């Protein structure tokens, strides 16, 4: 039996060190857990400061004893390599473990154990934990804002159908894949706009929308039976004729006068709000800012001096000012430049402002990708006789955009996170609704629950977006 030197553990007395070390480490963890979960202090007979620091010392000695290199035990080596490489790391690991153990009970009790969710008034929230009843009661407001309760199915229906239409890309077969870009860039935004404008906004104009849909669907179904020779003429003439027939001859008078089908109630944009408004604003800004940013980045690298300097000025201006002043500008300054009888909706102004603002950032990101491409790509494309647009569309942009997927994703994330700022023009999306609910006299004092709820919602959205962009990046990654 060799002499045991506790200052430098080695492999010779492996198990002696191992058992003592693990025992000491477990003792320290046990002490802290008892203290934290059951509030029993085993070392209460000691002075307060020593009793506080004792588990740290015991655990530290324990970790020191099991720090044996190449012990031959796989799990021990793994442990040493990951949390116990030297004294400093062991100390930090211990602190992190203890902090986690210490903070677990209060967090658990606040979130779950002492929280209330039953009931429908403030009175049930007597515990020290969170009052999820508040979230439950206000859930509709947080999701839909001031949108009338009876009409909320319109938002749900629009979002569900848009999500369904958006997922078309996954189901498309090889044959139709080439049309997907066209679909997502042009057709899908138009459909989305129609949904938002006619369906969520509502009003008598809804009839036009529904006639349009009926006309389109019916004529597409009939279109399958038309010989391909005449298809083009058919699709130019028939849907419009059908639409006019529907609108002015068959239904119009009858429906309105007999009141058989009431028009969808018009909901002004001021009443929209909550998470659905976050989605609407982010969606449209995302769609608009990308092409604008693309053209700005091309403009900045243009050979035409005027276009170049206009683009630089535009980009640097928007990048230099905070979004909140841009929104101020759109709400107080912009209307002054309009003719007196002209009025642009608040939501539209906000969407334009945010789109232009984010477009400047997108432009800089895309410029980075354009600059990263080697000169040879341009020269090769030119030597094939391609013009400016052909070269950019078929050679440069596909490569450049692929390079900047992470950057664009970051900009889009920033956009989503910027949407709460629209409170300055009086539009209340989810954070704005929280602030409104917080001041309701019946529900005072639940600010924390609201913010935690909104944080979780935003975290899920943004985290999912960033993971998706990471997948996209991996998918389009080509070794160069």
């Amino acid at each position, binding site marked *: 039996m060799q002499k045991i030197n506790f200052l430098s553990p080695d492999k010779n007395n492996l198990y002696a060190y191992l058992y003592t070390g693990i025992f000491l480490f477990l003792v320290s963890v046990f002490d802290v857990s008892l203290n934290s979960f059951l509030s029993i202090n085993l070392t209460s007979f000691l002075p307060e400061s020593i009793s506080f620091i004792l588990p740290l010392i015991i655990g530290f000695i324990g970790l020191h004893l099991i720090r044996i290199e190449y012990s031959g035990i796989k799990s021990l080596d793994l442990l040493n*390599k*990951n*949390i116990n*490489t030297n004294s400093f*790391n062991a100390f*930090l*690991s211990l602190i*992190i*473990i203890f902090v986690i153990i210490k903070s677990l009970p209060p967090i658990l009790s606040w979130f779950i154990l002492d929280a209330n969710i039953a009931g429908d008034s403030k009175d049930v929230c007597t515990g020290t934990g969170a009052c999820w009843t508040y979230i439950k009661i206000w859930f509709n407001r947080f999701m839909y804002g001031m949108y009338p309760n009876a009409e909320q199915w319109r938002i749900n229906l629009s979002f569900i159908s848009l999500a369904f239409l958006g997922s078309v890309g996954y189901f498309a077969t090889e044959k139709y894949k080439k049309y997907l870009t066209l679909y997502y860039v042009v057709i899908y935004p138009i459909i989305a706009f129609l949904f938002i404008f006619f369906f969520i906004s509502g009003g008598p104009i809804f009839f036009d929308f529904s006639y349009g849909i009926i006309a389109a669907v019916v004529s597409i179904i009939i279109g399958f039976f038309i010989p391909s020779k005449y298809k083009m003429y058919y699709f130019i003439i028939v849907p419009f004729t059908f639409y006019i027939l529907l609108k002015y001859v068959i239904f119009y008078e009858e429906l309105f006068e007999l009141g058989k089908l009431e028009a969808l109630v018009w909901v002004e944009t001021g009443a929209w709000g909550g998470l659905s408004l976050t989605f609407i604003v982010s969606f449209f800004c995302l769609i608009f800012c990308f092409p604008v940013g693309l053209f700005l980045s091309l403009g900045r690298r243009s050979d035409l001096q005027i276009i170049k300097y206009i683009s630089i000025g535009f980009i640097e*201006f928007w*990048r*230099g*000012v*905070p*979004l*909140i*002043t841009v929104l*101020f*500008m759109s709400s*107080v*300054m912009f209307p*002054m*430049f309009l003719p*007196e009888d002209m009025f642009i909706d608040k939501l539209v102004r906000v969407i334009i402002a945010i789109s232009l603002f984010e477009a400047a950032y997108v432009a800089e990101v895309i410029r980075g990708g354009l600059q990263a491409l080697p000169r040879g790509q341009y020269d090769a494309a030119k030597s094939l006789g391609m013009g400016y647009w052909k070269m950019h569309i078929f050679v440069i942009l596909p490569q450049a955009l692929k390079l900047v997927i992470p950057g664009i994703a970051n900009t889009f*994330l920033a956009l*989503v*996170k*910027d*949407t*709460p*700022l629209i*409170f*300055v023009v009086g539009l209340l999306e989810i*954070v704005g609704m*929280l*602030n409104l609910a*917080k001041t309701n006299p019946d529900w005072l004092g639940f*600010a*924390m629950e609201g*913010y*935690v709820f*909104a*944080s979780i919602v*935003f*975290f899920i959205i*943004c*985290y999912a977006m*960033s993971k998706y962009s990471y997948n996209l990046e991996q998918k389009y990654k080509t070794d160069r």
Partner: protein
Amino acid sequence: MDNRGITFGYGFLSQESSFDVQFSLIEYDGSHSYFRAYLVGLLNTILVSVIGIIFATVIGVVVGIARLSNNYLIERTAAVYVEFFRNIPLLLQIFFWYFAALRALPLPQDADPMFGVFFLTIKGLFVPAFIWNNLDIFVYSIIAAIISIIFVRYYAKKKQENEGKQTPVLLISVGLLTILPLLSFLFGGSSFIVEIPVLNQLSQNSYNYTGGLGLPPELIALALALSLYTATFIAECVRAGVQGVGKGQKEAAASIGLTPNQVLKLVIMPQALRIIIPPTTNQYLNLTKNSSLAAAIAYPDLVLVFAGTALMQTGRAIEIVSITMLTYLSLSITISIFMNWYNKKIAIKEK
């Protein structure tokens, strides 16, 4: 514009503003001009930006290095922090700190002092103030110390280039920074008294601290949220920068016999900084611009004082919004010019 009866001009700036601002770095009340109000807002914006930048840099560098640690627990903790704070809108974080976290603080009369002199209450953080005697001599001594440090650095660099010897610049700098101000206390006649905040009863149930330095809760919430949010981005920049330095550099430096400290100081950091600086500049700019969210919690910054209150009172939307935007534009341009200069200085000088 004409048919709406709006006149255009900047004359209103010299008119009496007749509104009050709760927190201001320079002397201000309602009898001062709108221009003075503008200055108050601007200084408050700069104050919160500077505080935010300092804290964000410190937290960001620490977390960025923690993300590179080979300790699994530390690396995960840092990653969770970054993922969490980065994915929540800044405005929500500001609201959270201001309306939820800081509202849970004790009332002034119930506050426990931290280290006996700091009072963190619902009305803000009260810290001891220094009341100076002959402050100018102290300031001169610090300026002198900084100038001599610059000389020492210059000399040390020359010495290293010529003879290959290293001078302990850091030790000398710290020494200079302590000795020269100390001399100003001993011989220059500068001194200070520490004024500790004292609890005063204002009325039946209302207490507050007087004396000392009071930081309003708006400032604390804003600075906290800004630095915690921006630090996540800076941490990612730092991580990317250190990872961007090739492994071969480290091994080559070690193989010519440099100590680990020297490897970090002379080989890794100069190269990593080159990658870190440009994106970090962007983050500083973002922080400055994001400080305008102060308007949401009524911290009297440029947007709230000038584009808010002053605009409501005068109705001069075009002038005020354009002045505000130009101010931010010039702030951004100033920071970016400075950082570009710094970036150029440390960039690889290709022959």
